[in-house]
């Protein structure tokens, strides 16, 4: 067992554990914390896959900003205190189909003969290559993404904002 | 070669009339009436012209033949596109004339309509345009287009201007009847729609042009599979048992002129469709399935007549008699011989005029009396002699009395049926006897006998009703006494239908 393998299995175990925590935890806040674990573990996976940039982004944006947002939301909606209300009635069916789906995917991905698998040489992608690709070839998605963020921003403001009472009268 | 613009005009005039009415303010009711009657008269004139300008023993099967490219060279359809191909054979000419007559009479009768008469006439003219379109179209697409167009306005015409019937144990609201009529007819057209697709795909010519498709010899099994689609799809509109129940309910609920047009003309679209799409397109399928159709037709005749006998409502009786009479048409078509089919087409014409007259008369009575219960009347002849005379003529024509159109038609049908299925022919004649029973029962009960004081206020036919009825009667008698103009045109075309011996 190489170091990489060890790291991978540890990270993978963490990720799965975090994922389990997210879907099974009895308290919402715990779930959020488990999510952080999982997200950081995934960042580890990215490093293993030679994508340090992604790992960075993952930790900064996801594990940092997004989870904090989620925690805020949890606090604002104050629903973390009812453990029995956490899981819906359809969990047996859900478990079955999720297991079926997972099984099907695992069976598929492990039995498929992926093109380029054999000569797969993982090379580190230099930041500047990534950057220039992002701003040249992928400029359009990038710009659209900016619009997406803008829309999310505007939308969040519009929806979340409490209106002044005098506007009600109109 | 006559100009196809005549046919185009029969479609375009009502359409433009409908559009023109849109721009008339609805408060000018009298102007709308006058305009509509004028349009009805114009259509009558056009159809008369087309009928008499139709030349006998021409080489061309279709006259007034004309094409307008509608969509050309589109990928789906290849370079043929879709053509508005108009033309009539003798059958079409007779049906065109029928439509013209009934439309004219219908617009006259409709002059009584006062409630939102603008909307009414717009819808009526759409309906009429559709009917003319079906009879004149020689293109599958447009055939179906107009076919649906003719059904479309029915819902509103019945549901808005119609009337509900309440019986002791059940009721038939106009909404129900309108919905049933529309749904059953459109449902049946689904079968036609599928059949058209199948024919188009199977022919593989990328065209909907009927004369072109007539040249195609379809595989026998294909014909056997597809023909029932057309037979049932069109048959339902012709009142085919057991899908006939839309007809009595719908006709009863409809306003007078709509009943006239619907029973008088629209039901013929179904029979016409069986000829145009079924027999002409798929002769072998027709031959295979006709025994079924003739049995169903016989059931129609007897079942309709017997049901009519049990009716306590004037209009229901007439409605069921339509079912019965359309059974003769189906029987005639199913004989697959020239005499029978000729008789069927004659019956289409005859029944159209006759039933229109009946509905016009029932409507006239209902408008005044607000009831249609047979038992409520008696001795009407004293107050309404012309009404009784007109109604009696329609009744006698419908029981197949010589001298009226019904006899000529039914006689031909019987001859045809006896050639192929004598036993069914005998049953058909029995049906005519049953018709006599219910018609005469109705007349004895409602028209004659002591007068009922309740109806002292009844007036005889108004001038428009009189005029409309007179036009219809003229044709009933003309065809009954001198059928040659009709038969010559019809027989000429019937003999050209493949498989007709």
């Amino acid at each position, binding site marked *: 067992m190489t170091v990489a393998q060890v790291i991978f299995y540890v990270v993978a175990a963490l990720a799965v554990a975090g994922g389990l925590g997210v879907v099974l935890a009895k308290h919402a806040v715990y779930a959020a914390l488990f999510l952080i674990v999982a997200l950081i573990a995934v960042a580890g996976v990215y490093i293993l896959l030679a994508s340090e940039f992604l790992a960075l982004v993952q930790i900064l944006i996801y594990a940092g900003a997004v989870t904090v947002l989620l925690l805020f939301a949890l606090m604002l909606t104050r629903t973390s205190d009812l453990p029995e209300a956490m899981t819906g009635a359809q969990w047996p069916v859900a478990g079955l189909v999720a297991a079926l789906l997972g099984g*099907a*995917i695992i*069976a*598929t*991905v492990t039995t*498929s*003969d*992926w*093109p*380029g698998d054999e000569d797969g040489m993982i090379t580190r992608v230099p930041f500047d290559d990534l950057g220039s690709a992002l701003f*040249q*070839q*992928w*400029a*359009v*998605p990038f710009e*659209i*993404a900016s*619009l*997406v963020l*803008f*829309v*999310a921003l*505007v*939308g969040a*403001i*519009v*929806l979340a904002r409490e209106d002044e009472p005098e*506007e009600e009268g109109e | 070669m006559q100009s196809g613009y005549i046919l185009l005009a029969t479609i375009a005039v009502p359409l433009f009339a409908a559009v023109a009415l849109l721009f008339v303010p609805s408060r000018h009711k009298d102007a709308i009436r006058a305009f509509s009657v004028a349009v009805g008269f114009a259509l009558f004139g056009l159809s008369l012209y087309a009928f008499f300008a139709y030349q006998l023993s021409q080489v061309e099967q279709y006259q007034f033949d004309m094409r307008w490219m*509608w*969509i*050309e060279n*589109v*990928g*789906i359809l290849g370079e043929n596109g879709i053509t508005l191909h108009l033309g009539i054979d003798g059958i079409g000419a007779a049906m065109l004339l029928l439509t013209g007559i009934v439309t004219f009479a219908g617009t006259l009768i409709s002059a009584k309509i006062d409630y939102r008469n603008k*909307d009414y006439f717009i819808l009526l003219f759409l309906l009429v345009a559709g009917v003319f379109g079906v009879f004149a179209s020689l293109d599958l*697409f447009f055939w*179906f*287009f*107009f076919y*649906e167009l003719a059904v*479309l306005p029915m*819902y*509103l015409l019945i*549901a*808005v201007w119609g009337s509900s019937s309440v019986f002791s144990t059940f009721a038939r609201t106009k*909404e129900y009847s309108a*919905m049933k009529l*529309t*749904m059953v007819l*459109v*449902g049946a*057209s*689904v079968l036609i*729609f*599928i059949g058209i*697709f*199948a024919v*188009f*795909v199977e022919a593989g010519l990328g065209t909907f042009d009927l004369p072109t498709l007539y040249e195609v010899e379809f595989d026998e099994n294909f014909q056997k599979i597809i023909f029932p689609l057309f037979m049932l799809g069109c048959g339902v509109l012709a009142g085919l048992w057991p899908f006939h129940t839309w007809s009595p309910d719908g006709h009863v609920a409809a306003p007078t002129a709509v009943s006239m047009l619907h029973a008088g003309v629209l039901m013929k679209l179904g029979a016409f469709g069986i000829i145009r799409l079924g027999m002409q397109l798929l002769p072998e399928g027709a031959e295979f399935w006709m025994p079924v159709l003739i049995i169903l037709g016989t059931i129609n005749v007897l079942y309709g007549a017997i049901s009519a006998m049990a009716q306590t409502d004037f209009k229901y009786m007439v409605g069921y008699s339509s079912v019965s009479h359309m059974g003769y048409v189906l029987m005639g078509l199913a004989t697959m011989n020239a005499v029978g089919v000729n008789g069927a087409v004659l019956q289409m014409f005859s029944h159209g005029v006759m039933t229109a007259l009946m509905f016009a008369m029932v409507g006239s009575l209902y408008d005044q009396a607000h009831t249609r219960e047979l038992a409520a009347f008696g001795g009407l002849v004293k107050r309404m002699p012309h009404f009784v005379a007109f109604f009696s003529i329609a009744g006698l024509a419908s029981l197949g009395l010589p001298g009226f159109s019904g006899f000529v038609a039914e006689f031909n049908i019987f001859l045809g049926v006896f050639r192929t299925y004598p036993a069914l022919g005998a049953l058909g004649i029995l049906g005519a006897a049953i018709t006599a029973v219910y018609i005469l029962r109705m007349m004895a009960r409602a028209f004659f006998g002591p007068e009922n004081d309740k109806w002292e206020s009844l007036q005889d036919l108004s001038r428009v009703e009189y005029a409309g009825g007179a036009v219809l009667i003229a044709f009933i008698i003309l065809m009954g006494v001198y059928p040659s103009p009709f038969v010559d045109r019809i027989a000429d075309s019937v003999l050209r239908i493949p498989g007709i011996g």
Partner: protein
Amino acid sequence: MSSELNLDYSLLTPEFCLAGLAALILALDLFVDDFRKSWLPYVAAAGLAAVLALSLGWVNKESDFAGLLSVDNYTTFFRVFFMATAAVVALVSAQFVQDKLRHPGEYYALLVLSTIGAIYMAASRELLTAYISLELLSFCLFVLVSYAKHERRSNEGGLKYMLLGAFASAILLYGISMIYGTSGSTFYADIAAAYAGDTSAFDLALLLGLVMVLAGLGFKVAAVPFHMWTPDAYEGAPLPITAYLSATSKVAGFALLLRLFSGAFMPVLDDWQWIVAALAAMTMVLGNLVALQQHNIKRLLAYSSIGQVGYMLMAIAALSAATSSALLLHMTGYVITNLAAFTCIIAWYNLTGRDEISGFRGMAERTPLLAAALTAALFSLSGMPLFAGFFTKFMLFQAVADEGFLWLTVIAVVMSFVSLYYYLLVIREIYVSKPEEGEERLPVPALISGLTVALTIGVFYVGIFPRHLLDVAEEATKLLFA
């Protein structure tokens, strides 16, 4: 690498202009107080119209941006399509927004921005671009559906739409990753090239990817069983947004599906054809049958639009040059009709505050024009002649049958017949049932009247003179199968 790429930003001019328009609207909303309530929709509509005119400059030109997206006739078709739709929706929103909603600036800005997403869904020739455009459209719609933020139904619709949308886009992404994994690329052309050869090595992964992509896009277009958000979101959303959902959102999904499946998945047609056919069949049947049970006009139209999706999916199942141009034709006719219907419904709602079907009682007496137009639209939706629906359905079904899917056509025709029933129920309320309160005429704003007339004429135009539109649709789809 970069030197070979065509990075001609001018291709994106219309979308830049749209973004600018959105910014302008926001700015107007912010700074010019007088404008706020009344003029924004007209600014939006005028701007959209202007950009629409501008985009006509790319007719019959063919160019691509770094292989990510093409500006060709297909794109131009949808540019015009979406901008016109957005303009109409902006106009019909005017009074509704003024009466019932807050923050009009953002409303119209989002409307304009969503158009960009829709256009790029149609234009993209690459999965990432397609995905992100889809998200742009979705995000705008999430917000717009929840826009009546003090209304419980709007909140609920928005929540369901949002959560399920996120869920569906996760599934879609997973599917895309499978496609990417098996083909090594996200570009449609490369994917097609990769699948052109032997795919047996990764057949299952490919299938999985296809199913998941179909699920994700099926969500977008509301295909059964991924449709369940539709009725709730339709009912919850503010009325103009319901109209917009039924038009742009759906059509954009199909624009994407069509380009994707014809561009990338054509070589593995046999793998997905039956899936789409099955989805189409289920969608038609469920949508139309459940619609029979509805009491709310929005919900009714939601189910009816599900039914319509079934018809459209048939075109994808029987994918060919003929079906795709028929699909474009049908979608155009459908959207014009639907907008006509919604214009009337919105106007009626503005006047009476009713959106139950029974609330349409006496419409014929009180607003005859709207009643007639709505009736025409409903007849058109059910596929009656003279109206757009008849011809477009005929062509669509015809094309599908011609590809050998007669059984699917049979279901479609039967279901189309079933649909007539519930449309007639509405028409019955409009024309037959007597009004409950008052018979006096209601004042319909001139703008709405004009719009109604224009759209109704459009409905008739497509139904009676479909030739031009058919030519355009054919031009637009020609290159898909070049």
